[in-house]
């Protein structure tokens, strides 16, 4: 099945280019292969979702791109340059929100701007803009402990947007939320994305979510972590409820579902 993996394209054309990236961790004396020669190109302003069973290395792939982990072999390129540590050009949104609990919503959103050395007035103005964008203006001076899970994640999204990254890496951002909040946030995310274009890599374990959001769904498989299938989603944006209930959506959803839940094991994984 690895034949469906797109062959590495020339790095210059892709916003993100993952080339033959492998990552192994020592686990109980053995090497656990989190990623096995994964290659993937993501175009500028593309919204790519990554789905797969747990242990398929989707979070590891994201961490490599974020610069939080180094690949054991292979290269990860952003704008044609090797990823060397984290940077404000790549915003990351974590599943556990990762808001600074001692800072108010406003201060959280301003954090990256402060680090970048922006003057106070400009910081405030930018933060204000993004807080309004995610609809938290009423809670700008509230501490994270006052917020619901969905509001926390919206705050985290505003914080990531505020530093103006060209890439957003989202690691199961809505995983901990209830289904209703999740749908709302999905729609809001697309709305925000259509206004403030970014290249997005969005990790999820929810097939519906993957299809609803993406230009392209990347399905990964575990043991070893690898790309199993890539599904192009031709559905138009904005993605409305109609789109969600359309037969075409159902067809794509079935396709991705099949890829995720009926994976043939890697018989010749070592040989490739």
């Amino acid at each position, binding site marked *: 099945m690895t034949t469906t993996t797109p062959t590495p394209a020339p790095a210059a054309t892709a916003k993100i280019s993952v080339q033959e990236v492998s990552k192994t961790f020592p686990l109980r004396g053995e090497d656990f292969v989190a990623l096995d020669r994964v290659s993937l190109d993501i175009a500028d302003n593309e919204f790519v979702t990554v789905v797969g069973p747990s242990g398929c290395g989707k979070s590891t792939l994201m961490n490599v791109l*974020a*610069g*939080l982990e180094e690949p054991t072999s292979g290269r990860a390129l952003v704008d044609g340059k090797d990823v060397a*540590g*984290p*940077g*404000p050009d*790549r*915003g*990351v949104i*974590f599943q*556990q929100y*990762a*808001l*600074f*609990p*001692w*800072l108010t919503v406003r201060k959280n959103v301003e*954090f*990256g701007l402060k*680090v*970048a050395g922006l003057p106070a007035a400009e910081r405030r103005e930018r933060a204000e803009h993004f807080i309004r964008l995610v609809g938290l203006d009423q809670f700008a001076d509230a*501490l*994270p*402990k006052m917020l619901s899970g969905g509001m926390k994640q919206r705050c985290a999204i505003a*914080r990531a947007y505020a*530093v103006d990254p060209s890439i957003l890496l989202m690691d199961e951002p809505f995983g901990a939320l209830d289904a209703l909040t999740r749908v709302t946030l999905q729609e809001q995310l697309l709305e925000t994305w259509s206004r403030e274009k970014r290249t997005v890599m969005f990790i999820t374990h929810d097939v519906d979510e993957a299809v609803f959001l993406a230009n392209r769904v990347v399905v990964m498989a575990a043991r070893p972590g690898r790309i199993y299938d890539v599904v192009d989603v031709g559905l138009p944006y904005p993605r409305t409820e109609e789109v969600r209930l359309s037969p075409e959506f159902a067809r794509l959803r079935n396709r991705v579902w099949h890829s995720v839940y009926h994976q043939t094991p890697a018989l010749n994984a070592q040989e490739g």
Partner: protein
Amino acid sequence: MTASTPRLARNGPPPGAPAAAAAGPRSGRDTGAAGQPGPGRPTRRRPPARTLLLVLNACSIVAGVAIWWILSLNGFQFPTPPEVVEKAVQLGRDGLLRQDVLASLGRVLTGFLLGSAAAIPVGFLMGWYTVARGLFEPWIQFFRTIPPLALLPLVLVLMGIGELPKVFVIFLAAFLACVISTYQGVVSVDRTLINAARVLGAKDGTIFVRVVVPASTPFILVGMRVGLGSAWATLVAAELLAAQVGLGYRMQQAQLYYDLATIFVGIILIGVLGLVMDRLLLLAESRLTGWQERR
């Protein structure tokens, strides 16, 4: 686990497990929300419940004093409450009380402040740099198992009988309690928060100041509270053994003359002063760490 570890230190080092508190696991993500190491904190309730609690507190105190009074009138060798109050007034008029309180407070605050001031940077160094941890840890773990008072004979021989030895043992008591807690705070800072700061462009220095320090503040304050309790306990004992002035000394003198009223005055003052200092720290704690999520 993060909540209970600093509390352990209050009851002295658990024998046989000297490394337990400091070598705790680097618990990752759950510490962020669960980082609520404030032990023994009264739960915040709605105002009516609070008033009720206060009324109950007052009733309990009155009942306690009443029992004391009844006992002292029925053959127990206690001074009665009025006798103790009278004694306190008399000692106050003589200026002895003021002198003793100031001497004791001076010692405990000097030792406590120096101890905490030394413990915080050392705890941070231990949490942040493996080298510092490797160098400091054996000594801290070793001295943690020794009650500071046990060092007093040695300290008295080496430092003479002035203020220095007493302040030193108090310093040690406060330092040991606080350093472990600070270290614990630093190593249990949520990795995700550090990563979040890194991806927002923060470098090590910024992460330390803006993430590690605030995230470990609750632990530091718990350490300081434990340290203060420990310092106060050590002080009184040190004064009982070697002092010419101070609450402990006054009680020790009174013991020679079978002066129970003075002993009572001393005990009550020590309790009240300790309580007041603890409440002040608690107030600082609730101001500084009110952002914590409580479960």
